[in-house]
C-alpha cells in the first residue's frame, strides 16, 4: 500500500496546482498578485509547475506602495525575467498624485490601507476576473473562513457571512459582469509548510528573510526597519540589530524579529519553535480585533 502514499507537502502541492489550473480553465483574464513575499513566491512556483513546459498563462500584478524594500524589487524583476511573464504594476504613489486617495498622516502612518483602492483600480483597469493570491487560512482568524474561489462583488467587496459553499474540489467561478474572484491555492498551507516547501524545492527568496544586521527602531513591542519613510518620534533612536523578517509588506509596517537564522534549516527550526504568529509583527493587524476582516471586506488581499 505504502507505494501510493504521498507526503503532506506533495498533497498540498497537488491541490495548489489543481486550483491554479482551474483558474486558467474557468476565467478569461486571471492574474497572480505578487508581493515579493514568500507566499506569493510559492504561488508563482506552483504556477510554473502547473503549466510546464508552457509559460504561466497569466501576468504577475504587483501593488507597489512606493515604500518597498529595495531587495524585494530586485527579486521581483529578476523572477519576472526568468519566467518570461508580463508584469503589471499598480502604483499607490500614482493614485496619491492624482488625488484619488489621501495619504495617512502621523507617526504610525502607513500605506497599507490605500493599497486596497490601488488594487481595485488595477483590477478594473485590466478587467481581471480572477486574482490569485498567496493568503493562507492559518494566518489570521478572518482568513480561516476563506474559500479557494472567493467571490468579490462589483465594488470588490467580500461578504463573509454570505459566501458560496465550496464542496469537494468543485469550484464555481461563475460571476456577473464586473465581479471577480480572489483565489487562494495555499489556503491549506501553514507557515511551516511554506518553509519546508521552499527548502524541498530549492526556491529562491529575497535575502530579507535571512538574518542580517539592520538599523531598526523599537516601537510598541515591534521592531521596524528604519528608512526614509518611517516618521521617527523624538524619543526614538535607531539601533543596529541582527534581525530577519517573517513576512514582507510595506517597509513601514512590517516588523522584524531578532534572529540569527541565516539559512533555511535554521529558519525552519525557528518557525517550528516560535510562540508568536508571523502576523504578530504586523502593525496593520493590530488596529482592532476585526482589522483583517474589515480590510478584506473592502477588497484587501
Amino acid at each position, binding site marked *: 500500500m505504502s507505494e501510493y502514499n504521498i507526503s503532506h507537502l506533495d498533497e498540498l502541492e497537488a491541490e495548489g496546482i489543481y486550483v491554479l489550473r482551474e483558474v486558467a480553465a474557468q476565467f478569461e483574464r486571471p492574474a497572480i498578485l505578487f508581493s515579493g513575499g514568500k507566499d506569493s513566491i510559492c504561488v508563482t512556483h506552483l504556477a*510554473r509547475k502547473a503549466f510546464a513546459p508552457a509559460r504561466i498563462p497569466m501576468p504577475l500584478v504587483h501593488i507597489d506602495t512606493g515604500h518597498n524594500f529595495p531587495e524585494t524589487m530586485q527579486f521581483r524583476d529578476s523572477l519576472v525575467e526568468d519566467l518570461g511573464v508580463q508584469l503589471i504594476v499598480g502604483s499607490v504613489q500614482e493614485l496619491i498624485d492624482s488625488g484619488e486617495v489621501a495619504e495617512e498622516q502621523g507617526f504610525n502612518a502607513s500605506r497599507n490601507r490605500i493599497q486596497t483602492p490601488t488594487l481595485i483600480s488595477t483590477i478594473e483597469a485590466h478587467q481581471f476576473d480572477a486574482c490569485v493570491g498567496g493568503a493562507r487560512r492559518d494566518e489570521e482568524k478572518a482568513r480561516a473562513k476563506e474559500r479557494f474561489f472567493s467571490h468579490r462583488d462589483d465594488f470588490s467587496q467580500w461578504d463573509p457571512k454570505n459566501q458560496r459553499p465550496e*464542496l469537494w474540489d468543485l469550484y464555481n467561478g461563475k460571476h456577473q459582469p464586473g465581479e471577480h474572484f480572489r483565489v487562494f491555492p495555499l489556503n491549506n498551507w501553514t507557515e511551516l509548510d511554506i518553509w519546508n516547501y521552499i527548502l524541498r524545492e530549492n526556491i529562491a527568496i529575497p535575502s530579507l528573510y535571512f538574518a542580517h544586521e539592520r538599523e531598526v527602531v523599537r516601537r510598541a513591542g515591534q521592531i521596524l526597519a528604519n528608512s526614509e519613510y518611517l516618521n521617527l518620534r523624538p524619543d526614538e533612536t535607531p539601533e543596529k540589530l541582527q534581525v530577519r523578517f517573517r513576512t514582507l509588506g510595506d517597509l513601514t509596517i512590517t516588523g522584524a524579529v531578532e534572529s540569527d537564522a541565516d539559512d533555511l534549516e535554521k529558519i525552519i527550526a525557528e518557525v517550528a519553535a516560535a510562540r508568536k504568529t508571523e502576523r504578530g509583527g504586523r502593525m496593520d493587524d493590530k488596529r482592532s480585533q476585526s482589522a483583517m476582516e474589515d480590510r478584506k471586506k473592502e477588497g484587501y488581499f
Partner: protein
Amino acid sequence: MAQGLLRFITAGSVDDGKSTLIGRLLYDSKTIFEDQLDSIEEASAQRGTDGADLSLLTDGLRAEREQGITIDVAYRYFATPKRKFIIADAPGHIQYTRNMVTGASTADLAIILVDARAGLLEQTHRHSFIAHLLGIKHMVVCVNKMDLVDWDEKRYEEIVDAFRSFSSRLDVPDIRFIPISALQGDNVVDRSENTSWYDGPTLLNHLEQVHVAADRNLQDCRFPVQYVIRPQTDAHRDFRGYAGRVTGGVFKVGDKVLALPSGIASRVKSIAIGDAPVKQAFPPQSVVMTLEDDIDLSRGDMLVRENNQPDSIQDLDVRVCWLSDRPMRPGAKYELRHTSREVKAVVKEVVYKLDINTLHRMEDDLEVGMNDIARMRIRTAAPVLADDYRRNRATGSFILVDPTTRLTVAAGVIYT
C-alpha cells in the same frame, strides 16, 4: 511525516465541548501562539468571560463573536511529528446543515462528540448521518465529559452499545470509541489515569495512526482532463499535454488508455509533475500526461481503461443537500458541474425528503429548501461520466449552479 495529511471534521454546538476539544488539540500540540492567546484573553475579558474562551479562536468573524455562535466552517491546522492535520470545524445546529455537508465533503474522518450525561441526541444522529452520506469511512465517537459521570465504565458501554445499534444502518466501516474529558485533557493527547478499563489509544494517537490512503480508489483508472497545455514555443512546438488530477486508479507510462466520450484508444507516452517525469500517477496527484496519438481530447473529457469504464448516464439517481435560501424550483434548469465537465440539468422528480434527525423519509412534503436533504432524479442535457459516490467520491459528486444568480445552490452524490 510518513502518514501524510489527515483531514477531519468536528461538528457540534456550543455546549458539547467541541471548541474545548479543538482548543485542547491545538494547545497540547503547541499550535496556539502567545499573541493569539493574548488576543483571545483580551476579547474574553471585554465580553466578561472568565479565562480564555477558546471558541473565540475558531469563531473568527465579527458576527460570530457578537452572537457567540459558529456560522461558517473554519479550517484549523496542526501537526505532530507523525502527521499534519486539517480540522474542518463546522457548526452543529440543524440550520447549518449545509455548512456541515461542506466540511464533510473533503474529510477523511469525522469526530462525533457525545456528552456522557446526555447520551445520544438528535444531533448525534444528524452528524453521523451526514458523515455517512458524504462517504466518510472513519468515525471516532468521543464520549466526552466522562469526569462528570465519575468515569463510569457502565455508562460508557451503554453509550457505545446505543451508538452501535444506531450506526448499523450507516455505511461506515471504521468506528472507534474513546472515553474522554476534553476539559481536563483525559485521553485527548495524554492517556487518562481514570480509565484503567479502557485499553484503546488516545484520540491524538488514533488520529496519528489511522490509515486513510487505502480509502482512495486505486482500482478504477479515472483522469478527468482539466486543462490542455500547448506551449507554442520554439522549444515545445508540438507539445500537447493533458493536465489534471488523477481521481482513481494508477496510470503508468505505456498503459493503453481510452478517451471518453470519444472512445478513441491510445497509450500514455509520458507523465510529469512540473518538469519532472514520473513513471506512474495515482490519486490525488496533479500531473500532465501526453499520449502516443494525436487525438481530440479537451477539458471535460476523461481518460480511463478500456475494460473499466465509468457509467455514461443522463438520468441520475442522486442525494442532494440544498444550499441556497431560494428553494428548488421544480422543472427549473440548472448547470451541473461534475469533475471538469459542465452540463445543463433539470430536476425531474423529488422522490423523498429526509428527516435527518430521525432518518425518516418524507414523501408527502416534497418542497426542497435550504438545508434539506432529498433523493431526486436529475436529467442532464448530455451524458456525464460517473461512478457510484460510495466507490469514488470525485467521480460520484456534483454541484448545481443557478444560471441566473451564478450561485452554487446544491451539492449532490450519485448512486448508480
